[in-house]
Structure formats: C-alpha cells, structure tokens
C-alpha cells in the first residue's frame, strides 16, 4: 500500500515518487525471495537424480515430473527478470519524474515572473482605469453598511463570515497553493515592473537570475510600507524560562526523538521555545531546540512575539532592518541554555518556528547538526547544504507557499495531499494544523524510502541520554 508521500528535492512533483521508490525496493526484495524459491525447487529436483531413476527403472511419469520441474525453474527465471526490470524501471521512473518536475517548475516560474513584470508595468494604467469603478462599488458597499441598523449589519457581516467559512476549501486547494507560491516568487518582478526596471535587468536581478531580488526583498518592502502606516513594527523582547524538568519526571527516552515525537515536543501557547539538553559519553552536551508556530495574527505588535510582525521580518531575513522578535527570543533562550557556536544542536520548528529554525541554521552562529521543519515558509533561507534538512509540507497548505520555493537550500522535502476527511476540520487552514502534520510525521517514520531513511539516520544520536527539558516564554517588552 502506498503512503501518499512524495519525497524529493526543492521542486514539487506530481507523482508520489516515494511510493515508486518504495515499490522499487519491494520488487528487489521480491526478486530475492524468488531466488530463494528457485533454490528450494532445485534442491527438490536434485533429490531424485538420474542414478536412482535408471537403477529403479523408474516409471515414465517420473521423467514427466522432472520435465515439469525444469519448466517451473525456467518460468521462475523469467519471473525474476521481470522483478529485476520492475525494480530498476520504477527507480528510474521516479528519478525521471523529479527531473521533469524541476524543468516544468522552472519554466512555469519564469513565465509567471514575466507576466508579473507586465502586470506591474501596466499597474498605473490599470489603476487609472479601475479606480473610479472600484471607488463607486466600494463606496456603495461601505455606504450601505453604514446606513443599515446594527442588527442588519450584524447579520450581513455574519453571513459574509459564514460564506468565507463555507468556501474555505478554496484555500486548501493545491492549485491555490501553487498560485500563491508563484505569486510570492513573482512579487519582485511585479515591483520591478512598477518601477519600470527593464525586463532583462529585472530577470537578471530576480530569483530566476542572480537572486539579488526575491521573496526576502519583497517582504522587506512590504515591511517598510506597513511600518509607514504604524503596522508590523519590531520591538525589544524579554525571555524567561518557565519550567525545567528532569528526565525522570519528563520520562524522556534515551536517544534522539523520531519525527512524530518531535511534533509532540513543539511547545504550545503560552510557551514558544523548548530546549532539551542531552549528555553524550566523551563528547560535549548536545541540544534539541523546538520552536512553536505563529500565535497572533494581528498587524499591530502586541505582547506576543510569535506574530505577523515576526513572520514578515523573518521572511525578509537579512533585508529586514531588525531581526524578527521571535528569532531574537530563540537566540536569547539558546544562549541562556548554554548553547554556543560549538555546541551540537538540532533545530525543529513548526510554521513560523520552522522559518526561525532555518534562519538560525543559516546564520552560521551555531553547530547545527540537523534541521526539521513542518509547514514552514522557509524557501528564501539559504541553509548550508551539509546540514541534514527535512521539510514536511502539505500540498493543501498555503503557509509554506508563502516562502516560495527552496531556491538556495537543498532539503529533503516530504509532501502529502490531505484527504477530504483530514481537511474537514473547523480551522480556516486545516492543512496547516499540527495534528495533520503529526499524521504525516508518522508516515515519514514508517517510510522505507532510501533518501528518507538515510536522512533520518543522520538525525539520530542513539548514544545520547536526556538531562533536562526547559520551556521558555518570550514577550515583547513594548508594543
């Protein structure tokens, strides 16, 4: 049975290559089984040799049996040929699909970038043409809402909310997700079109070219615009440990956690950071850091640093004037936990936490020996290629698409399309729910795909023993 996982590099794939690679492995195992079966038939065949047949003047039927056994051996030989061809063919097909996806993905992105540039270039004209109409329609709606009595206005707004809830499945449509991804990747080209930068230069500077402009610079531009309106402004932060537990009370098992266990250890509000310390015989202590997802969706910075302000600043990365509050909080907690530039550390994060984990891994300030992200918009972050990096994404999840594609890092990406039942929850973005990522994580742990098992082995440190587990709470010190 297939597990529906697609395992590959930074580009998406339309075929569940994990199941293809899995079937290739199963066909190889089946061939080995047939080889053993062949050997056992030969053993039976040899048990009655020509000597006894001649000496006993055996009946004709014995020769018929001998001939039938030879037929069986020949058919088995052919069956093994099929199994071997299937194994090699399936593995090649899976690799071929991934190459084709890379080529198609690149071409689509290129076309989207050029289209976005034209849109940007034509924006002033479009604004001039559509503004009167938009003002008329918008003014009519706003006017109608204003003249309505309170109960009627409440009913209209409630129905509008209901309509959004009923049609939220559009947000979980993989086509919407890919459109958003293309839109994010093309935002810089749109801006270049607005600024009348020649298309060749825009292409050269964009993420399809030299990568000078990209998702990060687009996010920084949005941050500057929002900051001018008093929104999405960064602030100082404070971080404090909330609780520290010993392994006896936390019942942490020895060795590093599986992918499903990592999900379970991502802290829930009000805490945002968890740091587990492990001892390794004859080696320095090593750490596992877990970072939570976005907790506050407002555009004004409040007390919570895991908010949209941090999301935008983290997406802008080094283009942001100040690092994201949540990133600074994670760094401070790591420092307080005793993590230095030479301390081995594995980072795990969900959503915004995954983006932060990728940023910390890319910073070069830590000896990161593993990175695991769930539904993280970490596309623009250039994580060094020697760090074992696993990224789980749902094809129906909009959030990872907000980071575009992985232009300058090489994670092993596991993608899965969620079933209708999994998407039927009450959340606006059910595909982004941690509970659904927990299901995918269990499938990852049970996968026999060679690329995945190889990566999971690199994330494992079976000789380590847990020492402490500490939860941290960060807050913005002024809003």
């Amino acid at each position, binding site marked *: *049975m*297939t597990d*529906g996982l697609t395992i590959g590099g930074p580009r998406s794939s*339309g*075929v*569940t290559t994990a*199941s*293809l690679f899995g*079937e290739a492995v*199963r066909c190889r195992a*089946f061939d080995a*089984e*047939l080889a053993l*079966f062949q050997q*056992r*038939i030969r053993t*039976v065949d040899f*048990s*009655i040799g020509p000597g*006894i*047949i001649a*000496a*006993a*003047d*055996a*009946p004709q*039927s*014995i020769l*018929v*049996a001998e001939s*039938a*056994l030879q*037929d*069986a051996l020949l*058919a*088995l030989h*052919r*069956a093994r040929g*099929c*199994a071997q*061809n*299937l194994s090699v*063919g*399936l593995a090649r*097909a899976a690799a*071929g*699909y991934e190459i084709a996806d890379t080529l198609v993905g690149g071409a689509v992105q290129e076309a989207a970038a050029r289209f976005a540039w034209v849109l940007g270039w034509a924006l002033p004209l479009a604004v001039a043409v559509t503004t009167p109409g938009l003002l008329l329609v918008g003014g009519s709606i706003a006017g109608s809402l204003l003249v309505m009595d309170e109960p009627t206005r409440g009913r209209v707004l409630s129905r509008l909310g209901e309509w959004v809830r009923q049609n939220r499945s559009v947000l979980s449509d993989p086509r919407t997700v890919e459109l958003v991804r293309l839109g994010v990747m093309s935002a810089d080209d749109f801006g270049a079109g607005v600024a009348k930068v020649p298309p060749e230069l825009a292409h050269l500077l964009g993420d399809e070219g030299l990568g000078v402009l990209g998702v990060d610079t687009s996010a920084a531009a949005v941050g500057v615009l929002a900051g001018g309106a008093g929104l999405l402004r960064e602030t100082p932060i404070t971080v404090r440990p909330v609780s520290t537990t010993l392994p006896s009370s936390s019942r942490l098992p020895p060795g590093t956690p599986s992918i499903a266990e990592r999900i379970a250890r991502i802290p829930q509000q009000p805490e945002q950071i968890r740091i587990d310390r492990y001892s390794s015989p004859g080696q320095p202590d090593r750490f596992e850091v877990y970072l939570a997802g976005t907790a506050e969706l407002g555009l004004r910075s409040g007390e919570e640093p895991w908010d949209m302000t941090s999301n935008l600043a983290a997406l802008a990365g080094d283009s942001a004037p100040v690092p994201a509050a949540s990133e600074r909080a994670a760094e401070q907690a790591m420092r307080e936990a005793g993590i230095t530039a030479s301390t081995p550390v594995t980072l795990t994060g969900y959503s915004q936490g995954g983006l932060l984990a990728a940023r910390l891994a890319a910073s070069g300030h830590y000896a990161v020996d593993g990175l695991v992200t769930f539904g993280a918009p970490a596309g623009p972050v250039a994580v060094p290629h020697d760090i074992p990096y696993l990224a789980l994404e749902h094809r129906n999840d909009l959030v990872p698409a907000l980071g575009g594609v992985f232009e300058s890092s090489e994670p092993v990406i596991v993608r899965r399309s969620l079933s209708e039942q999994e998407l039927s929850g009450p959340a606006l973005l059910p595909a982004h729910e941690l509970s659904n990522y927990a299901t995918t994580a269990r499938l990852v742990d049970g996968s026999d795909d060679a690329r995945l098992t190889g990566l999971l082995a690199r994330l494992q440190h079976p000789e380590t023993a847990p020492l402490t587990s500490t939860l941290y709470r960060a807050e913005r010190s002024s809003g």
Partner: protein
Amino acid sequence: MTYSDLSSSDLSNRAALRILLQDQVARLGALRGEAGALLERSRRTISEAEWHGPAREAYERLSHQLSFELATVAAALDDAVDASTRGIRTIELAPP
C-alpha cells in the same frame, strides 16, 4: 521389461525411489502453496498501485508478465506433483 522381471536389487531401488517420491510430493505440495501466495501478492501489488504517469503502462505490462510467469510456475509445480503421485502409484501397483 515387466515387474516380474525385476531383481531383488531392482525392487529395493524401487522402494527407495518410492520413499524419495513421497518426500518430493510433500515438498512440492508446500512449494506449490507458496507459489500460489507469491502469485497472489504479485497480483495484489498491481491492483493496489495508486500512482499514475507515463511509466504506468510499462509497469503494468511488466507486472502482468511477472504474474503470468508465477502462474506458469504454479502450474508446472502442479504437473510435477501429479506426475510424481502417478509415479508412486505405478510403483505401488507393482507386484512384490
């Protein structure tokens, strides 16, 4: 040559062959059962494959060929069991 022409040495060889054949039939019967299971697994694998794409056709063709060859193995083992059983009967029918 008829059974009455067989020497005592021939008869003892025949008794030995009969024992070997009985053992062969038992082992072939077990192998036949396993061949059936292998065939069933190979058929189930094709029906459960959920992926689609340009390579699907070649995959199905090879998988059906594999199932066909395994069916041939099972039929040949059936023939071998039948022939061996007939051989045992022929020997048993021989006069002492």
